[in-house]
């Protein structure tokens, strides 16, 4: 075995001539060679490629503590899935495969270049690379991209997918996707003048359309092979790997796609021969197997469980093999202005001042596994982020004096009683509610804990305005992660009062400020990127002035770095390891 590995290592070294990566493969390789970031230390894979190599072959083993939401590119709506999907599908655009800040930039994948806007951002044109083939050897056509986007619009078949395309595309009225609206002419939304050109026609100008072109929903789907809701059983690959086995809910594996042409794909290295993914693995067992090296990666990429946390952080050798990225995710508490006395701004401000954010942080797992204290809505890595703290307190533990002053100003000097809602299935939110109960009690605000089932949390309880009002849910724990790192993606769904539905189900549950809505409209239609980013920061500040949201923490995760893999680095776009670059040492 050793001998064979040496031969392989030598062979790859020859093949890799001219490439800068140092050879990390081979059992006999000297770890000192080259001065790369091969030394295992905390956060070693955050801004540099850890253990770079071009050695091909081997199997990468991944596991998911739950089920995959779906493997169908038209419906999947998890960052980890979008990251992994690039192994078997090529969207028009994707995020750059490189460590650090650069991974937030878009780069062409199936397309030849970024989108070309015309009509002031109402029309977007993409040229796709000619000659790209599916796993069965048929050529990918522009019509396949159009079909893929159109089928994703069918929310009866794909209820959980992103809904940006139906929001922005100029689709015929009551269009329900190609299964139900058979034969309907959709040229008002997407045209394909030839086999390599896709043109998107929008209802209104949208400067950030390239981000939509990077969604997995633009991964081409051949109409002849589409089986609707069952397509997830066999997704036809356009990427470097194709499905070998697929037992839904249990496991699946990928093998090499013989029809993938490396020359057409400068993004992916496609080093390993196989990917094996187990589903529904017990989360604690998963951590133990990661630490023992039996598994390579926890594919969900949200970090270790509390049980393993103590073990990993307490042991310097184990901690050296971890990375600690910040996610584009805010854990926060909505302060509902519809529930008295929170209709008075000073009562809301009392909560902002009194809350002990270190308790919030501990509830989510502390500074490493939980996150960093937040005083703004937008996380630092989102372009347009402005650093400010309108309700400062020493060490984030809350300012009792200022909180009491605010209570006096709102006519409740002795405090008041209200309720806090949280999702019953989430122990971290329960811990937040308990922590806020403690810290707000310091100024006389008495909280009663109200757990609700997470499945109906937004539709029937904390996100249902009449219910909130009738049951006096003054506070509700909440969380939001951007679909991509951009002010629009981060803010629009949680601060726009027009997304609040009286029937429930909206993610904004508390921010009702017409001025914020106006600022949002101005920012979205602004075609100047720099001015737009400036505007996101201003909106953030305005919402904080209104005190409708108590920001808790910007989430971080503690990832266990795979010991046996090469080319390991954290992609800031996904806030986890980039799954397309990995190789096996």
């Amino acid at each position, binding site marked *: 075995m050793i001998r064979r590995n040496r031969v392989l290592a030598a062979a790859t070294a020859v093949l890799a001539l001219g490439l800068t990566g140092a050879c990390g493969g081979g059992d006999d390789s000297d770890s000192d060679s080259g001065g790369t970031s091969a030394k295992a230390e905390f956060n070693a894979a955050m801004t540099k490629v850890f253990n770079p190599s071009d050695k091909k072959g081997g199997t990468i083993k991944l596991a998911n503590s739950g089920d995959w939401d779906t493997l169908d590119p038209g419906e999947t709506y998890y960052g980890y899935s979008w990251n992994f999907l690039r192994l078997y599908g090529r969207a028009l655009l994707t995020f750059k495969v490189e460590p650090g800040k650069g991974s937030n930039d878009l780069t062409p994948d199936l397309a030849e270049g970024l989108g070309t806007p015309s009509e002031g951002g109402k029309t977007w044109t993409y040229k796709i690379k000619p000659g790209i083939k599916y796993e069965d050897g048929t050529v990918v056509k522009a019509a396949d991209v159009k079909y893929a986007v159109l089928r994703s619009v069918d929310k009866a078949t794909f209820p959980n997918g992103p809904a940006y395309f139906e929001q922005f595309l100029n689709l015929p009225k009551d269009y329900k996707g190609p299964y139900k609206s058979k034969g309907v002419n959709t040229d008002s939304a997407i045209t394909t003048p030839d086999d390599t050109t896709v043109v998107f026609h929008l209802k209104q100008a949208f400067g950030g359309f390239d981000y939509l072109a990077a969604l997995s929903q633009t991964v081409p789907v051949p109409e002849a092979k589409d089986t609707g809701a069952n397509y997830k059983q066999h997704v036809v690959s356009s990427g470097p790997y194709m499905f070998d086995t697929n037992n839904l809910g249990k496991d699946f594996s990928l093998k090499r796609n013989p029809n993938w042409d490396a020359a057409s794909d400068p993004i992916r290295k496609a080093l390993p021969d196989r990917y094996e993914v187990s589903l529904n693995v017990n989360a604690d067992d998963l951590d133990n197997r990661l630490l023992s090296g039996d598994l390579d990666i926890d594919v969900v990429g949200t970090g270790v469980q509390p049980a393993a946390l103590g073990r990993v952080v307490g042991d310097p050798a184990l901690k050296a093999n971890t990375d600690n990225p910040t996610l584009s995710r805010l854990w926060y508490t909505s302060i509902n202005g519809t529930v008295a006395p929170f209709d008075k701004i000073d009562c809301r401000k009392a909560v902002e001042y009194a809350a002990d954010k270190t308790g919030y942080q501990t509830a989510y797992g502390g500074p490493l596994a939980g996150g960093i204290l937040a005083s703004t809505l937008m996380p630092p890595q989102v372009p347009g982020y402005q650093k400010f703290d309108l309700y400062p307190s020493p060490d984030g533990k809350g300012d009792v004096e200022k909180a009491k002053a605010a209570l006096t100003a709102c006519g409740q000097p002795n405090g008041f009683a209200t309720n806090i809602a949280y999702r019953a299935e989430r122990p971290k939110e329960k811990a937040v509610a308990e922590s806020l*109960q403690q810290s707000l009690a310091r100024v006389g605000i008495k909280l009663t804990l109200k757990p609700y089932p997470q499945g109906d949390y937004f539709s029937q309880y904390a996100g249902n305005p009449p219910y909130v009002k009738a049951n006096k849910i003054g506070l509700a724990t909440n969380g939001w992660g951007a679909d991509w790192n951009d002010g629009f993606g981060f803010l629009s769904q949680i601060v726009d009062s027009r997304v609040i539905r009286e029937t429930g189900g909206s993610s904004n549950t508390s921010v009702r400020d017409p001025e914020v809505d106006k600022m949002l409209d101005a920012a979205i239609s602004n075609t100047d990127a720099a001015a737009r980013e400036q505007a996101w920061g201003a909106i953030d500040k305005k919402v904080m002035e209104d005190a409708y949201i108590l920001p808790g923490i910007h989430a971080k995760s503690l990832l266990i770095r795979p010991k046996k893999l090469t080319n390991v680095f954290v992609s800031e776009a996904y806030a986890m390891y980039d799954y397309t670059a990995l190789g096996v040492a």
Partner: protein
Amino acid sequence: MVVGPGTVSDQVPLAPDPAPGGAVVTKQIEGRSLGRIAWNRLKRDKVAMAGGIVVIFLILVAIFAPLIAGAFGSPPNDFHQDKIDPNTLAPIGGTGISGEHLFGVEPQNGRDIFSRVVYGARISLLIAFLATLLSVVIGATLGVVAGFFGGWVDTIISRAMDVFLAFPLLVFSIALAGVVPDTAFGLSGDALRIALLIFIIGFFSWPYIGRIVRGQTLSLREREFVDAARSLGARGPRIIFKEMLPNLIAPILIYATLLIPTNILFEAALSFLGVGVRPPTASWGGMLSDAARFYTIWHFMFFPGMAIFITVLAFNLFGDGLRDALDPKGKR
């Protein structure tokens, strides 16, 4: 098992009491009541007495929880995050056990585990006792009625028992606890949750008592003293309450004592599954549920787990001893 009137002499212990016993036996042989005989027998069962003492101790702990927690711990819902390592969420020094926190502190929040175990005893015992009382009242009444009247009354009640015993109770209670609103029947918050748990547990465990009582009633019905009462003109209610019920006290007491630990475990299971009292109120099952996330931090699971273990064991030992004392024929 059945102890009828006039059979007292059968129950005199064969072995004389130690030291002062001999004289006492000869002197007071006719003055002993049933309860006194049973008590004498129970007193000699060291294991049962130990169980009984632990049970009394636990009841006292539950009643005086605020005093005990005040003297040896800190309020059960107070956070002590200065005792927690923020990076690992574990208590500093592993457990945080100190003079101030006898059982250490919880990871993440730093709440005093001693106080929470002490306060948890209130919830566990209150629910277990009242649920048992409820099932005894329902079970004994329906059992006697079924056994005494027989016929179609017996058929209906017996079938009802079968239905209740076959009921998927755990699933049902999770569903029921989920749909009951925050305020109902004039109760709200923890009071409502406790009432709900008492109802669920008590209402569904009555057939265990009911079957025993029905069986006993069936055999008692045919006894001579019942015939005698009937021939003297006594009617149903009088026979049930004056003739039969005194003879049913022993089995009811025994099975009630043995039902309590089962109910404690059931309450813990429900709290573990999240349908018990609402946080932050402490309950043993809820503490175990929290501790499961931190299974590497041993003391968090150990103390509430031991509390459940000791309580259930004590009630079982005491209940077994009580059965031996009241029913000497069943022994050996």
